[in-house]
């Protein structure tokens, strides 16, 4: 879902930069009040994991592939604010060193994957209620991670659809359904992998998932 340079118009590129930088500044402030010193190691290792996982494309259908984005995974592991920052670091390094995702499109890519990934934390919270393990919780993680990919694809479809290059090809009414079609499927991969990862982490190392205190709304104590 990484948008390369050349796909987006200049107006939408600038707009997405403004939105993303605003949310990043807000996340940074919230994160400063949320996390304890132990965050750094977990943020580092989980961001590095997401970077590697994004390299591994899995085939979906009809000669198309997808890969884990990992936004919901980071959100459930770290809480939404550090998750947004971690994913933005991954996207920035991909754009700078690997030409994966454009430089002008970086604002849009940050919105579609990092910020929507952070939002999916609140989707988990709404769906899971106050439970933080068991069937309902894992089902909530599954649904939220699927939604994070579908919503990201919707945003991406809108962004490219309003851009001159794609408006000649039919604009939003073509790009949105096309993006949704593929990412409804790719999202199932995302959901299966994320639910498996979170379930395994719960079994192996329950303490590492203490961001779930935020799920219960108990965030007066610092996490991680």
């Amino acid at each position: 879902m990484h948008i390369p340079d050349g796909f987006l118009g200049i107006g939408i590129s600038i707009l997405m930069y403004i939105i993303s930088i605003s949310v990043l500044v807000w996340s940074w402030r919230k994160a400063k009040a949320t996390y304890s010193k132990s965050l750094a190691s977990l943020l580092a290792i989980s961001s590095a994991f997401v970077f590697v996982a994004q390299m591994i494309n899995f085939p979906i259908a009809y000669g198309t592939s997808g890969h884990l984005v990992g936004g919901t995974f980071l959100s459930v592991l770290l809480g939404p604010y550090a998750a947004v920052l971690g994913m933005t670091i991954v996207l920035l390094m991909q754009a700078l060193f690997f030409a994966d995702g454009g430089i002008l499109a970086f604002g849009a890519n940050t919105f579609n994957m990092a910020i929507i990934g952070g939002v999916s934390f609140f989707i988990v919270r709404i769906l899971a209620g106050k439970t933080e393990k068991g069937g309902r919780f894992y089902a909530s993680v599954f649904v939220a991670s699927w939604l994070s990919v579908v919503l990201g694809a919707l945003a991406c479809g809108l962004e490219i659809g309003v851009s001159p290059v794609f408006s000649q090809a039919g604009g939003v009414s073509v790009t949105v359904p096309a993006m949704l079609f593929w990412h409804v499927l790719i999202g199932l991969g995302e959901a299966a992998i994320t639910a498996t990862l979170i379930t395994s982490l719960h079994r192996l190392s329950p303490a590492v998932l203490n961001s779930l205190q935020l799920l219960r709304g108990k965030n007066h104590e610092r996490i991680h």
Partner: protein
Amino acid sequence: MKGYIKAIILIVLGLALFVPLASTFPDGLETVAETLGIEEHEPLWQGLMPDYTLPPISNAYASTFLSGLIGALIVLVFAFLIGKTLTRDSAP
């Protein structure tokens, strides 16, 4: 700390194992662009390791594996520094 070292080893092993299995099909967005007849132009900025390869290394597996390893290390260090800066004034 032990847990983190284990996690790093698992990530490196996962990379080594899954790199050759990764699909080379276009992703969702690339398929959409291709279907609509929109071509991806040469990017403004190539990066040092375009498309997850290390240009001097000709072996495809080694090239992708090493570029992934370098990328993961860059992300690890950068995210660690961001995490440290963020929690500079926090409780331990």
